[in-house]
């Protein structure tokens, strides 16, 4: 029945009517998500930038203050340090990318048994709650009874106050960040490796290239688009680090004030000191830095990324 009606109706509709009908359907499909995205994501960008130029009172009164919020946050020593900490964290996180590439190549070695098991083990931290990851590593890195320091002392080396020494703690937390995200990067490299034709690797093999040579001269250049994608994503994500720092460096930590990231500073300004204007200014600074760093990466890709 429905079939018959459809056949009869179709020729009677003009093209314009048809496309108008389609437009309503398009609205039906896109409308609900479009509205939500507009309200919760597009509007907040405008509002967030607007807020960074306002002084927001505790009960919501807003007055335009120009760039005072930016002057205020930049004048604080905290911001410079938070910025350096965040950049250091992001830079160290990049080391995870070559590590992930090597592990991906190892896991995909021909004839390897237990591939599935290795993949699961490397992926396990990805599905673990970051709060839990932070708590476990805080225990492992404990200055007095953490396993790491106890092992160091067992072989005669002094222990290190990993989490309460400024700079050192950022490096250590970045390594935990790498540990947590390695699985994702390995999977994405694996997908990239599967795109490399076997013939190319066999050709290199016939030319007498050993495994190391094949890796350096064939696999690394052919994976460079994946490497590029991961490095852009890594910088964007690690510039927003919060959970690990918030949980691994508690308020009793003597280095706490020197160990903030931009987002921890944002959280402190916005939700502890209720200075929404300053918090919005920090978020805008973060946005600007991420845009600049991404633009630089896109610029530099011409030098080292090979697209087929």
């Amino acid at each position, binding site marked *: 029945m429905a079939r018959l*009606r*459809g*056949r009869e109706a179709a020729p009677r509709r003009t093209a314009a009517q048809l496309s108008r009908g389609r*437009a309503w*359907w*398009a609205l039906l*499909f*896109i409308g609900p*998500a479009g509205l*939500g*995205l507009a*309200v*919760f994501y597009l*509007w*907040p*960008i405008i*509002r*967030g930038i607007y*807020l960074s130029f306002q002084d927001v009172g505790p009960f919501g009164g807003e007055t335009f203050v120009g760039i005072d919020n930016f002057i205020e946050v930049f004048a604080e020593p905290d911001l410079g340090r938070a910025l350096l900490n965040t950049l250091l964290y992001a830079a160290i996180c990049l080391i995870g990318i070559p590590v992930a590439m090597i*592990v991906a190549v190892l896991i995909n070695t021909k004839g*390897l048994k237990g591939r599935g098991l290795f993949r*699961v083990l*490397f*992926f*396990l931290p*990805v599905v*673990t709650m970051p*709060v*839990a*990851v932070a*708590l*476990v*590593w805080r*225990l*492992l890195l404990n200055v*007095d009874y953490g*396993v790491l320091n*106890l092992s160091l002392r067992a072989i005669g080396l002094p222990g290190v106050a990993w989490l309460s020494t400024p700079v050192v703690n950022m490096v250590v937390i970045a390594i935990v960040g790498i*540990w947590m995200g390695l*699985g994702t990067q390995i*999977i*994405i490299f694996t*997908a990239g490796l599967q795109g490399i034709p076997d013939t190319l690797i066999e050709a290199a093999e016939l030319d*007498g*290239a*050993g495994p190391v*040579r094949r890796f350096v001269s064939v696999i690394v250049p052919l994976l460079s688009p994946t490497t590029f994608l991961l490095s852009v994503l890594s910088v964007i994500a690690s*510039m*927003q680090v919060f959970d690990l720092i*918030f949980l691994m460096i508690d308020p009793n930590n003597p280095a706490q004030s020197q160990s903030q990231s931009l987002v921890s500073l944002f*959280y402190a300004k*916005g939700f502890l000191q209720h200075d*929404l204007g300053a*918090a*919005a200014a920090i*978020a805008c600074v*973060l*946005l600007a830095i*991420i*845009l600049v760093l991404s633009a630089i990466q896109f610029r530099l890709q011409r030098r080292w990324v090979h697209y087929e």
Partner: protein
Amino acid sequence: MSESTSVMTRERAPVAVREPAPVTTPRRARRAPGKPLTWVYALLILGSAVMVFPFIWEVLTSLKTLSGASSVPPQILPDPFTTRAYTKVFDTLPFWNLLGNSILLTVIRTLGQVLLCTMAGYGFARFHFRGKNVLFIGFLAVLMVPGQLFLLPQYEIIRELGLLGTIPGIALPGLFSVFGTFLLRQFFQTLPMELEEAARLDGANEWQIFWRVMLPLAKPGIIALTLLTALWSWNDFLWPLVVSGSVTSMPLSVGLSLLTDLRLRDDALLMAGALLSSLPMIVVFLVLQRQFIQGIAFTGTKG
């Protein structure tokens, strides 16, 4: 020529790894049975140990006594073996309540996001209307923006709606996702147009085409988005930390962080709490590992 010498010198170094056959033999490239693989296994086992050790230590510590967890030299195996820390998690935290909140939030956000993103992804892939590309690029720009910029205005909206400290308030912004819309759009774009035409000739309306014909074909994409959203929702921390306010609407991630505020630091308790909170998602992963890994791979190749 320089090529071949460099190959020679590179070949020299790992003597133990490869058979020292001369470069001139064309067939020597076949692997010496077992030897290079031994190195691969050694490296992978070492790497896996680094990945897994913290979990093993977490489990062992959670079964120790208060003093056993922080003793020097360390106890390797719990002595005595006790489930005290687990009992204490349930005494200290309203654990079942937090677990319920986490499950509820994950189900709401996952179902909502998958449905809305699938519809919108389909709309962007299959319909043509004026301003579509501008709109789409506008949404894509959102992907570049750090989440914190949204956070304050989203907080204001939730406050204005009177939803602070409620499950719907925490869930609402997470129903929508640019990333998910983009991922599904990529999927729908690859499906052949003929299927749609055929269904239309059979008299199906647009919704029927979407629901009965296209949706089943986009299943890999939908499964990927479902798992990624569930994972993100379960582990989400900053937003619920800011919005929940009290244990009534708090998910496990935020509840777990409360354990660090206790005056007496109890590492066994922290490890038991960490384990109990992450276990549900780890179990889901172990059951659906192939789909999880596929999902992550999609985000790298399509996203």
